[in-house]
Structures are given as C-alpha cells and as structure tokens.
C-alpha cells in the first residue's frame, strides 16, 4: 500500500466514507427512536458545556475583551470542532485507548489498508455524529452577522485550517495519552476519555484572565487553549500579531508529530506482545 498513488488513496478514502455514511444512515432508519434519544441528548449535552460561558456573556454583555457576539463565535467554533470529531472519529476512534485496551486494534490490523487509513475512515458517522454541527454552525453564522464579518477567501481559508488544526490537536492529545494503553491495557482503557474531557470542558472559556503559568500550561501541557480560545482570538483580531493565525496550525503539526511517534512505538510494542483480551487470564474474557 505504501507505493499507492495519491489519487488512488484519495478515492479509497472517499469510497470508505461513502460506505460508512450509508451504514450510519441505515442504523438511523432502523432504530429512529434510539437515534433520536441519542441525538437530542447529545445535542443538549454539547449545549450544556457552553451554557456557562454563554450565560455569563449574556449577563455581563461580554467577558473582558470578548464582546457578546465574539463569545458566541468562540462557542460556535468550539461546537464545530466537537462536531468534526464526532462525525469523523466515532466508534471510539477518537477515544483510542478503549480500542487498544479492549484488544479491538486487532480489528483494524486485519483490514487490507494502512492503519492510518482505517482509523481515518471507519469512524465516519456523518448523520448520527452531527449533533453539535447544527447549533455550532448556527452560533457562528449568528455571531458573524452581529460582528459584520465580511470574510475574504484568505480569512475563510485560515478559519478552515484553524478549525482542522484544533481538531487535530484534540485528537493528537487523545492519541498521545491513549498510547499508554499499549503498555497498560486494563488500567489505561479509559485514559483517552479523561484526556478528551479536559480538552472539551475547558475549551469554551476565554482564558485571557489567567496568569502566565496557567496560560502557558493550557497552551502546552494541556493544550486546551488551542481548541477554541486562541484560534478565535486570532481570527477575530483580538490578538493583532500577524503570525497569530498560523500558531494553532503549527501547534497541531508539532503535537500530531509527537503523538504519531509515541503511537507508532506503542504499535511496535503491541506487535510483540499482542492483546491479552481473549487469553484465559484476559481482563475482558
């Protein structure tokens, strides 16, 4: 597969996405009751995570340098990041430690594709995972109108790149911690969900009032500041530095690279020891 031409790989990815989208649609139509319960409750949960910041902004007509529409833009952006993750990396791909810890990585390894391609495509659930997409898009559009944004193509391109970079940072953080499950499958089975919780729960808050130590920590060791706060500062011009719009993409490249190295090392370890899931002493037998 390594020597496959790029066009052919792209076609494979699109074919897989179409296939998984179809299966997602079939699941919805077969169990509309279950789907509605999941969809509505997950949408409310997503809205619940941004409610605190929204209520504060509404009560005090903004938070520090963030006017009310700017806050709403950031909250919409945070929901869009969540939506992209939910739609493209469902079935525990984003919470990778569960797959590793439960021995389900074997299911990925037996596919006739590279691991990265399988992980990129088999979590695609564009319908059942779209619970944060509608409120996120609505908030961003409303805020853009209030802010009288007339975005040029360059701004739209930067916004799209930043959005993808924010998603990449969240996923990379999850994969980085999730790789621990290669060495401690039982103990670290849920570590990615703890990592994702940190990224998601802190992301809707403006971090401007924090001191340098905490702010530095939330942009490096716990890079939750890159999920919404920093990219929105850059896109809305709150941070006037000319390099501000490329900081999040750069951070995404660095963290993704680090996560890829650690994940690969874990995979090599897994290749030697395998999964103990189905052994007589396995924790999930």
């Amino acid at each position, binding site marked *: 597969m390594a020597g496959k031409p790029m066009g052919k790989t792209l076609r494979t990815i699109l074919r897989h996405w179409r296939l998984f989208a179809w299966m997602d649609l079939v699941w919805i139509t077969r169990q509309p009751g279950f789907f509605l319960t999941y969809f509505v409750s997950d949408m*409310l*949960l997503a809205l619940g995570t941004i409610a*605190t910041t929204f*209520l*504060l902004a509404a*009560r005090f007509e903004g938070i520090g340098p963030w006017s009310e529409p700017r806050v709403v833009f950031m909250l919409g952006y945070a929901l869009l990041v969540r939506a992209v993750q939910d739609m493209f990396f469902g079935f525990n791909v984003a919470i990778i430690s569960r797959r590793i810890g439960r021995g389900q990585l074997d299911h990925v390894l037996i596919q006739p594709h590279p691991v990265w391609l399988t992980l990129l495509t088999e979590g695609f659930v564009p319908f059942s995972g779209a619970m944060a997409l509608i409120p996120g898009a609505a908030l961003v559009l409303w805020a853009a109108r209030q802010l009288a944004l007339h975005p040029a193509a360059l701004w739209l391109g930067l916004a799209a790149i930043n959005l993808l970079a924010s998603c990449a940072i969240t996923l990379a953080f999850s994969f980085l911690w999730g790789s621990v499950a290669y060495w401690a499958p039982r103990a670290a089975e849920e570590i990615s969900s703890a990592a994702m919780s940190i990224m998601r729960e802190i992301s809707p*808050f403006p971090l401007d*009032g*924090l001191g340098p130590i*905490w702010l530095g920590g939330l942009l490096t060791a716990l890079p939750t500041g890159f999920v919404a706060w920093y990219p929105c500062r850059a896109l809305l011009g709150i941070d006037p530095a000319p390099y501000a719009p490329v900081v999040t993409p750069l951070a995404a490249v660095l963290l993704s690279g680090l996560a890829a190295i650690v994940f690969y090392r874990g995979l090599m370890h897994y290749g030697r020891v395998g999964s103990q899931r189905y052994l007589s002493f396995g924790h999930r037998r």
Partner: protein
Amino acid sequence: MALDDASAAAESSGWRPPRRSQPLPRITALVGSARRFYKTAAMAAAAYAGDSPWFPLDYLLRLARVVVLLSLWRTVLGGSHTVSGISTDAVLTYTLISEVFADILNCRTDLIMALWEGSITSFFLQPTRLVSQVVARTVGRWGFSLVFFSMPLLLASPALGVNPWPASPRAAVAFGVSLVLAAVIGFALEYLFLALIVALDQSPWGIEALRGALAMVLSGAVVPLALMPWGLGDVLAWLPYASMASAPLRLYTATGAPLTLILLQVGWAIILWAIALRAWQANREKLACYGG
C-alpha cells in the same frame, strides 16, 4: 427468577427477617447495618484508585476548571464590589466551595452505570438493601475525593486568592444541614432516573447525558442563580436541581434565607423520594440486564 420470587424462595427455605418488635435484636440489627454500611463504603473508597487509576487526570481537570472559572469571575466582575446583591469575594468563595463539594452537589451513584454494564445484578445478590448499598458505595467514593482532592484544594485556596471560610458559624451549620439534604435529593433523583430508564426501556446513556446537561445549567453550581441573565435564576431557584447545589452554596456564602432554602429542600426530598420509591416499585420487575 423475578425479584419477588427470589424473596419468596428465600423465606420458604427457612430464612426469616429479624423480629423488629424486640429492642435488643433491633439494636443488634442496626449495629449490623451500620457495620455493613461502613465496610461497603470503605471498600468503595479503597477501590477508587484501582477502578479508575487515572483519577489524577480527573482531578487535574477539576483544578483547571476552578482556576479558569475564578479568572472568569475576576474578569467579568472587575472592580465592582457587589453585583445583584452578591459581593465579588462571595462569588469566588461560592465557586471554590462548589468544586470542593462537587461530588455531593452533583450526586451520582454507580446505579445507572451498573445498569449500562449489566453489573447491577450483583447489587441484588448482596445481603443489604439496594438503597443502603448504593448510598454506602457513593459515600465511600466521596470520602476518597474529599481526602485527595477537596482538602488539598481548600488548603491551596490562599494561593488562588480565595477566602474558603463560611460567612459565619451560623452559615456553616446551615450549610451542613443543607448539604445532607442536597445529598438526599440527589439520591432520590438517581433512583427516579433508574426507574425511568427501566420503565421506558431506554439506553442509560441518552438519559444520563440529558440529565447531566440539565444539572449543569439548572443547578446553579457553576453560575450563581442570582447572576443569571433574564431573571432565569428566580425561576430555577424553585426547582429540585437548585436545591441540590445552589441552596447549600448560598447558605455557605450567606446569600440566601436559611429557613426558606432548607424548607424547600425538605419539601423536595419528601416529594422526590415518594415518587422515586413508587416508580421503582412499579418498574423493578421490568429490569433487564445485558452488559458484557
């Protein structure tokens, strides 16, 4: 075998419940219950680190959240000393204490996750009542968090620039009473939602997510109800979620009328437990476990 059938089978095999009319056996039974409660709570506390060895990550999230929230309050309240009758210092104390007692103010038990995993069957095999078992396990977990997160956070409060003390000794006593009542209401809601999930034959995940979202917004644990926009807090203050979190925190910071808040909590505790027990009695035979 249905649960009632199991009880009937146990009685026909010679087992008899202890006679309650005589004082000595009754005292012995009470001591036995207390011992079982303590042992279950101790086991739950000891199992905490083993069951979720990455709990420090959860504590890190909680610490980060409280630091970010404190910075947000300082930003929005700025130089103003009082907003809607609450001083800036009281808001900061409210936020800190909300995180210190977060486990109790947002009372969650093992019950619904046990239903999700199918391990709820083991609850029915224990020689104790379901309620006391669940309460003991939950109190045990609270104890662990209290020692390893809440106490260190309280000790670190000077570094966060927050006064952790209650507004007065009277406020501390009222807070203690109110905290117990908040837990009683929280357990009732757990029981009620368990009955609801069984009755509707729905996935616990959906209803849990819905409940989490409601609690986050309605309870006033994060944003004091008096500081909510559009007069929302005036309405939410009468709901049971506010009695779970907002009421004790208002008493701690002396920003609410003690008698009204405690009476409201007592009222909700009675109503919710009456509904929860009735709903559970009506639906417990429908309980089905899958898990795996």
